[in-house]
C-alpha cells in the first residue's frame, strides 16, 4: 500500500527536473506497439492529440476506448463535441462506458463548439474531450493547446486528412487510414522527435469476428 507521499511522486502535478519523461502525464493506450512509440508510453493527458483521418468508420474511436474506459471508471466525464454522426448510446455501453458520464455537444457554430471543448479541457472533472474540426485557425489551436496543458485529461482533435499536413501546435499528431482490415497508424509528430514507420493495429473485426469483450 503506497503511502500518500509516494503516490504524490507519481502525480502528474509533480515535476522533477531530472525526470522529465517519467513525470509526463500519460495514460496507456493498451496497444503495446503504439505505447512503445508514444513518448512516455501512452496518450498524453496534458497536450492536444491531433488525429488526421482519411474517413470516419475505420476504427478511429477503438483506438481510444481502452484509455477512456479507465478514465471514466475514475468518475470523470467524457465530452464529445460535434461528432460526424449520431453517437449511438448502445455502442458506448457495449464498450463499458457509463452514459451518464458522457456529454454530447452539437452547438450551432464552430465558435461555440470550440468554446465547449475548451471548457471541457479546463474542467478538472472532465477526463477526456473529443472534437471534430475541419478548418481551424492557428490561434485557436494554440488556445486549445494551452487549455490542454493544464493536464486535466485526454484532448483529441479529429481533422480530415484532406486539409493537408501543415504545421501544428498539437504535441502529438497521428494519421489514421484503413489498411486491409486493420487500422494503419502513422505518428507524424511527437515530443522528442523522430517519425517511426507506420504500424498496423488490429481493432475489432480485423479478423472478421467480434473480439470486443
Amino acid at each position, binding site marked *: 500500500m503506497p503511502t500518500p507521499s509516494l503516490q504524490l511522486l507519481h502525480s502528474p502535478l509533480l515535476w522533477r527536473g531530472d525526470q522529465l519523461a517519467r513525470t509526463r502525464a500519460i495514460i496507456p493506450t493498451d496497444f503495446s506497439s503504439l505505447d512503445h512509440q508514444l513518448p512516455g508510453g501512452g496518450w498524453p493527458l496534458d497536450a492536444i492529440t491531433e488525429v488526421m483521418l482519411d474517413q470516419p468508420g475505420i476504427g478511429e474511436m477503438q483506438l481510444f476506448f481502452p484509455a477512456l474506459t479507465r478514465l471514466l471508471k475514475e468518475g470523470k466525464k467524457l465530452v464529445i463535441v460535434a461528432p460526424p454522426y449520431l453517437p449511438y448510446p448502445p455502442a458506448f455501453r457495449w464498450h463499458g462506458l457509463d452514459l*451518464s458520464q458522457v456529454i454530447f455537444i452539437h452547438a450551432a457554430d464552430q465558435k461555440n463548439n470550440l468554446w465547449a471543448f475548451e471548457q471541457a479541457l479546463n474542467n478538472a472533472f472532465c477526463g477526456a474531450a473529443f472534437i471534430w474540426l475541419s478548418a481551424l485557425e492557428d490561434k485557436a489551436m494554440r488556445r486549445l493547446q494551452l487549455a490542454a496543458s493544464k493536464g486535466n485529461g485526454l484532448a483529441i482533435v479529429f481533422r480530415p486528412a484532406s486539409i493537408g499536413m501543415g504545421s501544428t501546435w498539437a504535441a502529438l499528431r497521428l494519421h489514421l487510414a484503413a489498411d486491409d482490415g486493420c487500422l494503419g497508424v502513422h505518428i507524424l509528430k511527437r515530443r522528442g522527435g523522430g517519425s517511426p514507420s507506420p504500424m498496423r493495429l488490429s481493432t475489432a473485426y480485423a479478423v472478421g469476428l467480434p473480439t470486443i469483450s
Partner: protein
Amino acid sequence: MLWACLRFPELAVEVFERSNVASTPLIVVEQGSRPSVVAANRTAMQQGICIGMTVGAALALVSHATIKVRNPALETDALKGIAIWAEQFAPLRSLANPAAVLIEIGGCLSYFGGLRVLLKRMRDGIDELGYRAVMTVAPTATGTLLFNRAGFETTITDSRRAREALCKVPIQALDYSRRTIDALEAIGVKSIGDCRDLPRDGVARRYGQALLDMIDRAMGDIPDPQKPFVSPETYSGKLMLPAPIWDVDALLFGVKRLTHEMCGWLAGRYHGVAAMRLDLLHEDVPPTYFPLNLSTPTRTAKDLILLWRERLSQQKLPDRVVGIGLLTIETVPLDSQSLSLLKEKGSNGDDIDLLDRLRARLGDDAVSLLHTYADHRPESAWKQGAIQASVEPLPPAPRPIWFLTQPTALKSVGNEGWILLDGPERIEAGWWDGAPVCRDYYVARNPQGQTVWVFRDWRQHGQWFLQGLFA
C-alpha cells in the same frame, strides 16, 4: 434577545439606483402640485442637487438627470426583499417603520462567530444588494429602532447600558403622534429620560398609555413582541432599471443584485436552486424568459452569476430592457457547504458543474445526455436525457459508434470489394406500435475500408441499407 435594526434612509432612491451600473445622475420626486426632489443619488448630489429643490431647479442644474416618481410600493417590495435575504442570518425578522428591518440575532451569534463577524457579513451583504443601511443593535426591538431613528449608530448588548443610553434618545425619535411629541417638547421634555422622570399616571392621563407602553417596551420592562415576517415559499424578485438598456453587462449588474437576494433566501432554508427563470421586461414587446436548469443544485451566488453571464451573452434581445425578474422554479434541500473550511471540489472555476456551464451558454438543445432504451429496433434503442445507470440488457452483438438515424439505401452490397464480417442478426419487432421492422443485420467492410453496419430490409424486398459505422 438581541435585535439588530437595519434602516435604509435612502431607500426611495436606492430602489432605482441599485441597478444603475454607470451611476448616472438620478433624482426621485414626489408628485404633487409643485413636484420637488425627495431623494437623489450621490452623482446628482455632487452636481449640486439638494433635497427639497423643485424639479425645475434640479433640471436647470443637471439637465440629463433621470427623473423617477417616488414609488412606495417598490420600496415596500425592496424592504421585503431584504427581509427575505436576511433569512440566512436569523429566522425571526420583522418589518418596521420607516424603511427598517428588525432581525433577532441573539440566537445565531455563536453560529456566525460573534457579533462583529455577523455585522460585517450583514453589511457586506447589504452592499451586494445595492443598499446602504444604518445598523444598530440593542436588547429590545423597540429600543434598537429608537436608537436607529435617533441616528445613534450603537451596538449595545448589555440591557443596563441600553437603558442608560435610551434615556438620552431625543423624544422626537418616538414613532408617536406628532402633536403629542411637540406638546411634550414645549414643556421641556427633550429626551426619553425626561419623559420617564414625569409622574406616570399624569403622563398616561394627558398623553395616553400607549406612549408609556412604547417607552417600557424599549426599556425591556414589558414584553416587546414583533410581528414576524414570513418569507414566501418560492423566491421571486423584481428590479426596475433607471433607464432602458441593451447592454448585457448592465443587465448582469441587476441580475447580480437579485441573485444575491435569492441566495440569502436559499441559505436560510438550506436549499439549493435546481431550476430558475430570469424574466426581462421590455418597453413594448412581451417579456423574454430565460429558464435555467441546474444539474447540480447550488446556492453560491458567484456561480449562478457566472451561469447567467454565459446565458445572456449569447442572446439577442428583441427590445431594450426596463426591468428584471428572477424567480425560483425548483429548489432542493442542500447541506450546508458555504462555511466549510476546505473546498471539496477542484479550484479555479470548477465549482460549477461543467454541464450547467455548457447548457447556460449553448442552450439545452445543443448539449445532450443520451441513454439506452430497451427496444430491439436499433433506431428506438436510445433516448435523450440522463438517467443514473442504464440497466437494460446489452444487445447480443456489437453496435456501431456512429449511427445513421435515416438509413441510406445501398446498391452495391455483394459486389466486388464488400466483405461480410459478421451476421446475420435478425431483428423483427415493433408489430405492436405501428413501426414494425424485419431486418437482417450484418457487419461488413466496404471497398473504402470502413467497417459498417448494414441490413437487408425484408419489408422492402431485401433492399440493403447502411445503418452505422464501427469507428
